[in-house]
């Protein structure tokens, strides 16, 4: 692979240096910030102990960017923020400047280039998401397309700050859920055990690894047509897809049977309530490219009910804890069913161990 004329000796430098990336006013006031305000959606004002103020303009990006797009963002940074920019963990780009007079022209230019300015305060922020069909080796769907479809429908909510609190979204293309816990998450749910490709299996898989990967011991060695292979006890299988990651011959993905589920109430922040994990509120939604209308429709129902009923600062999960799951299902029109009762490890921690009842 390495060409014989290679002259460079690798420097294992780790993360790229960051000091030169910070705006001089940021460097001057590093670690000495006093407070911040949100003068309008998409704009932050941070004031330092020194009295210096900096303005941040935040805009959404597709995340799957190109060198052309990055150069365009660089042009904006060169023009308005002395060549400095950064990104948020939710794929938004931020331009930071001490010059207040640059804020409005920057907003106009970003908007005219198609980058929506917003993503601040009580908004629906952009989606933490995964690779999908574009690049992943185990996806059942295409995250980028689902995200584009979702963000088109919540474009206004991204640009406004009209929600009870911030809403963080995620999508994932398999049950590993790389998109992560979120207020509302759209995650692939396999509904059938894997089909086993016996022709490939013994050639491409380490059998014990695939057996060990199963969380419910449903995979057993077997012999098919004289070749070593595996079998799945379908009554035990929980359709998690863990075996597929270890052995691509355990074909869990299916054009019809890999569906979507919707989850709500995840929260990573410690503010008010402790961080919380998500609960499933809809499943068996079709994986329906290119626009996934069933998924965006369910997202809309949840957001509408939350926007109407949530109190200031309540995240989605906190709102549900107050009004109760019964009302959540009534107000969103989603339907609770027996499969939403946990049957896995720690299931009893989700049972109602009290006489608290909602009628």
């Amino acid at each position, binding site marked *: 692979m*390495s*060409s014989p004329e*290679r002259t460079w000796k*690798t*420097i*294992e*430098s*780790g*993360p*790229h240096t*960051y000091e*030169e*990336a*910070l705006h001089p006013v*940021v460097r001057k006031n*590093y*670690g000495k*910030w*006093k407070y*911040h305000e949100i003068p309008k959606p998409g704009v932050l004002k*941070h004031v330092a102990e020194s009295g210096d103020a*900096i303005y941040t303009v935040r805009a959404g*990006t*597709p995340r*799957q*960017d190109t060198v*052309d797009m*990055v*150069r365009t*963002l660089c042009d904006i940074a060169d023009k308005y923020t002395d060549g*400095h*920019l*950064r990104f948020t*963990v939710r*794929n938004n*780009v931020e331009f930071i400047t001490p010059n207040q007079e640059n804020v409005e022209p920057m907003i106009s230019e970003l908007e005219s280039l198609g980058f929506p300015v917003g993503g601040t305060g009580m908004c629906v922020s952009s989606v933490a*998401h995964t690779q999908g069909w574009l*690049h992943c*080796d185990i996806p059942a769907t295409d995250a980028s*397309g689902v995200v*584009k*479809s979702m963000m*088109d429908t919540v*474009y206004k909510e991204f640009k406004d700050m009209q929600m009870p609190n911030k809403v963080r979204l995620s999508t994932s293309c398999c049950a*590993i*859920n790389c998109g*992560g*816990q979120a207020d509302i998450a759209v995650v692939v749910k396999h509904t059938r055990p894997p089909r086993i490709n016996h022709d490939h299996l013994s050639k491409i898989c380490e059998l014990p690894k695939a057996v*060990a990967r199963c969380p419910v011991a449903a995979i057993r060695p077997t012999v098919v047509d004289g070749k070593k292979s595996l079998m799945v006890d379908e009554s035990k299988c929980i359709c998690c897809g863990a075996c597929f990651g*270890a052995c691509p011959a355990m074909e869990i*993905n299916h054009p019809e049977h890999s569906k979507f589920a919707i989850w709500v109430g995840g929260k990573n*922040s*410690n*503010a008010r309530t402790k*961080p919380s*994990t998500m609960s499933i509120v809809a499943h068996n939604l079709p994986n329906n490219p*290119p626009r996934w209308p069933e998924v965006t429709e369910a997202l809309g129902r949840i957001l509408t009910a939350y926007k109407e009923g949530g*109190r*200031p*600062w309540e995240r989605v999960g906190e709102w549900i804890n107050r009004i109760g799951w019964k009302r959540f299902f009534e107000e969103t029109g989603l339907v609770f069913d027996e499969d939403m009762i946990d049957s896995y490890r720690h299931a009893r921690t989700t049972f109602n161990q009290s006489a608290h009842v909602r009628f």
Partner: protein
Amino acid sequence: MDSTKEGASKAACGCNGCAPEENGRFLNATPMLNELESGPWPSFVSGFKEMAERTKKPMLRGVLDQLEYSYKTRMGYWKGGLVTVEGYGAGIITRYSMIKDKFPEAAEFHTMRIQPPPGLHYNTAMLRELCDIWEKYGSGIITLHGQTGDIMLQGIEQDKVQECFDELNQKGWDLGGAGAGMRTGVSCIGPGRCENACYDNLKLHFKALKHFSGQVHRPEWNYKIKFKFSGCPNDCTNAIMRSDLAVIGTWKDAIQIDRDEVRAWIDERGIDTLVNQVISNCPTGAISLKDGEMEIESRDCVRCMHCLNVMPKALSKGEERGISLLMGGKNTLKVGVNMGSLIVPYMKMETDEDIEEFLELIEEIIDWWDDNGLDHERIGETIERVGLKQFIEGVGLEADINMVSRPRDNPYFKAKY
């Protein structure tokens, strides 16, 4: 796979053999993907298509064709492999097309994971340099950023990987983690802008990932391990859930109150708002009104950040700052989602000695995990299986009531007495 759809796709887009340039356009038809070009949110499809028409890179055409085919057949078509650079065992995510006969232009589509500067702070010189090198060797597709925290340079052929890496490396860029090793870190904006940053997370991130550089590039453990560095308990990097080693800023002393700003806040919004949005939301009832003044009982405060978030001008973090270390965060597979739990309630994080002490502890922790973990077992799973008590004994930590939400509710244990 649906063979009738395969046929239809060939006929419709004219790929595989016909010459699309003849009709004046470089790209083949992608009717399903084109549906993602309408609507107000910026479209990745438009971005890819525009760049493909400008650069005429066949790989981009092949990738769009294969993606269109995935949309039609609702299946993915990439498989992994073992591409890497000299001396490294990780950092390139290898992708070969499973249907390269159909889409030969996308036969190889490897990704280079690149470690960004902590806090994702850039200047345009850095980014332009990166873009120029990437356009020279690769497809030009960049993900900012992947869920592990890397810059993802997506789409390069194996025989160009080493040269591309060498050129990037000379400009200060290095590969990120993959596989069963230390992964790329993530930091929030930290002291670079946020008044809530309780420690210099950018510096700690930089030093920690440099320290573990060998294990980033040459995976040698049972499974992956990830750091995330959040400046305060708002945890904007989602460290508690997304990382095995969640380093979250905190403080020990009292929240600082600016009385004049509290009064100004109440004057503007009314006392009802203070009661309903601040006092009632305090998780431990630590806030009360005394003769019209807001009082915070520090011994009851758990540093949740809510009141600071609502009243950023009036309230600020305490002065005795440091970090909490939480461990074991991971997502669903296989035992179910696990939030990180508190292991070290407080450590100072001001000097280089503090950082060294922290890294020594992390070394101990990883050694314990390396000795006790099973294949494909994240450290949180190992701790749960082996026992938190055994873990803290193993790494030399003292039991602390902050490690649990309450003492055990069953009597089944053997004590040393």
